[in-house]
């Protein structure tokens, strides 16, 4: 099976380089999240001698929309990017970060307490150890997949890094809107992801003349 898939992929890729000048399109729309996702609470600090300091709550309304399959040029060469996930008031900012393979993500600590960022996800296992305010450590995300990020000290802190091997993805804004640009004409399978799972996958066609195509999602 692998051999067959590889052969198809090689043929398709070879054809793919021909129509480079064709107009490009885009997919845009809104993701309506109708399921409530409560941020993780602190575990009851029964052994603590007092109330824990107030913290920020993560923005769990963000979704990521992406192409499940991508045009072949998308795989040619991905420029290694740089991104940032801050730790402030015992919360990761942003709560969801979507990057391409090879991206270096910085994890600065902006709190006065220690943090210890780590992940045990298959796509990237790392443990940055404990470091103080003002310091930052980095991780190169070199494999596609979903990386769940945690703090070893504050168990209520968590975030997601979604790593793609193509650039056709977008994180929704505060209003749930997204836009994926520079798509060659074709039919695609578009997925909407939210808080750990792909909630909906829909087919869509970008017409030969290019231009924007609307695609909304409703996640129950």
């Amino acid at each position: 099976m692998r051999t067959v898939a590889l052969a198809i992929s090689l043929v398709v890729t070879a054809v793919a380089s021909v129509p480079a000048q064709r107009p490009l399109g885009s997919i845009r729309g809104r993701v309506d999240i109708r399921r409530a996702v409560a941020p993780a609470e602190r575990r009851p600090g029964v052994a603590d001698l007092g109330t824990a300091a107030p913290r920020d709550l993560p923005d769990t309304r963000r979704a990521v929309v992406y192409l499940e399959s991508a045009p072949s040029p998308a795989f040619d060469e991905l420029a290694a990017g740089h991104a940032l996930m801050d730790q402030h008031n015992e919360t990761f900012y942003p709560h969801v970060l979507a990057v391409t393979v090879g991206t270096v993500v910085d994890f600065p600590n902006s709190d006065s307490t220690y943090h210890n960022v780590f992940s045990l996800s298959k796509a990237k296992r790392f443990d940055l150890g404990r470091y103080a305010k003002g310091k930052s450590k980095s991780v190169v995300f070199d494999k596609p997949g979903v990386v769940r990020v945690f703090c070893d000290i504050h168990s209520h802190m968590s975030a997601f890094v979604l790593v793609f091997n193509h650039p056709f993805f977008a994180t929704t804004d505060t209003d749930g809107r997204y836009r994926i640009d520079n798509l060659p004409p074709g039919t695609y399978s578009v997925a909407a992801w939210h808080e750990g799972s792909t909630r909906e996958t829909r087919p869509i066609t970008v017409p030969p003349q290019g231009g924007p195509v609307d695609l909304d999602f409703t996640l129950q």
Partner: protein
Amino acid sequence: MLFKVLGAVLLCASATVASAQTLPAEPVSLGDGRVVVSGDASVSVAPEDTGFFNYGDYEHSMLREFRLGLSVAVRATDRISILGQIRSENMDTPEPYALYARLRPFVHHRFDVQIGRIPPTFGRFPRLAYGRDNILIGYPLAYQYLTSLRADALPASVDELLRMRGRGWLANYSVGNLAADRGVPLVNALNWDTGVEASTGWKWLDVSAAVTNGTVSRPLVSDDNAGKQFAGRAMVHFSPALSVGASYARGAFVSRRVLAALELPSDRSFVQEAAGLDVGYEAGHLSIQAEAIGSSWDVPMRATGTIVALQSGSISVQGRYAISPGIYAAVRAEHLTFNRVTGSSGPVSWDAPVSRVEVGGGYYLQRNLIARMSVQFNDRDGGRVSSARLVAAQLLFWF
């Protein structure tokens, strides 16, 4: 479409997440976060501890137990919370180990009052005792090892005391409760005392003080003597990496039952006094804690009509190093010593000094599921069994 390749873009998101985290990891939250419930379960297995080195306050070895715990926090208002914990060891009937109200009179001021069965004020380890915070399977000697001293039964003489040397797991004396029972540790980290505690803090300093029914060795729900314990703790944060704490406690120890047997007034008190100093350093993948504790108990001896000061001291150093993501190594070295008292055969330490080294490590099967293994080397200068090497394994899950 010719432009498409069948390249995998995302490894199926749900499957990836599922593989990283298949068991519930977050506490259960109800009523918009007003009620939060968390839990932990652990199974520890080890060969039989014939020397009773790891017997705690529960009449069983800490290395051989199935433990379930459930913690609850109910935020009634911004100023009032109720916190509780129930635990069950080896499928015994679950019992409440903590139940108290936490009051914050000034919402924006770091000042809390806790009333009820409250967490220990004394020492650093009690806040590291639960679940994943304990780096090894065993507990530090000072917080677990049972000395031969009891509060509800006392020896009539030094010789009677010395006969129980190294037998804290089952000591019996002729004054007070005549039934054989376990002795007390220097500081009991597993049972919590009942009383009132106040704490406050600034960026670099945490301070707390408590008045409780029992003592650090013997926390109580209902007082069984005339005196209360006063305990205090201060911790200075020199940097996020380095903190130093000091603790002190003093309270009536001997029970009314013993006082009655000695024909002493019930308001007479014989005290336990304890002081501790602890240091914690953590940076990068390394964390180290060291703690020294000294304790003294005033014990009346019926035979001579004198009061003997029984003293004990402990020192413990432990460290944890994360070798790679999800794998760590840990070690704890400690010693427990006792002062000498003079019996008919000359001066002897009133209980048998104990040394322990525990070396082990843990592997995170997932974030909240840890497999641990350790080897413990125990040596005691007395008792029926004077040394024991114990290999233990543990599986711990928490949410």
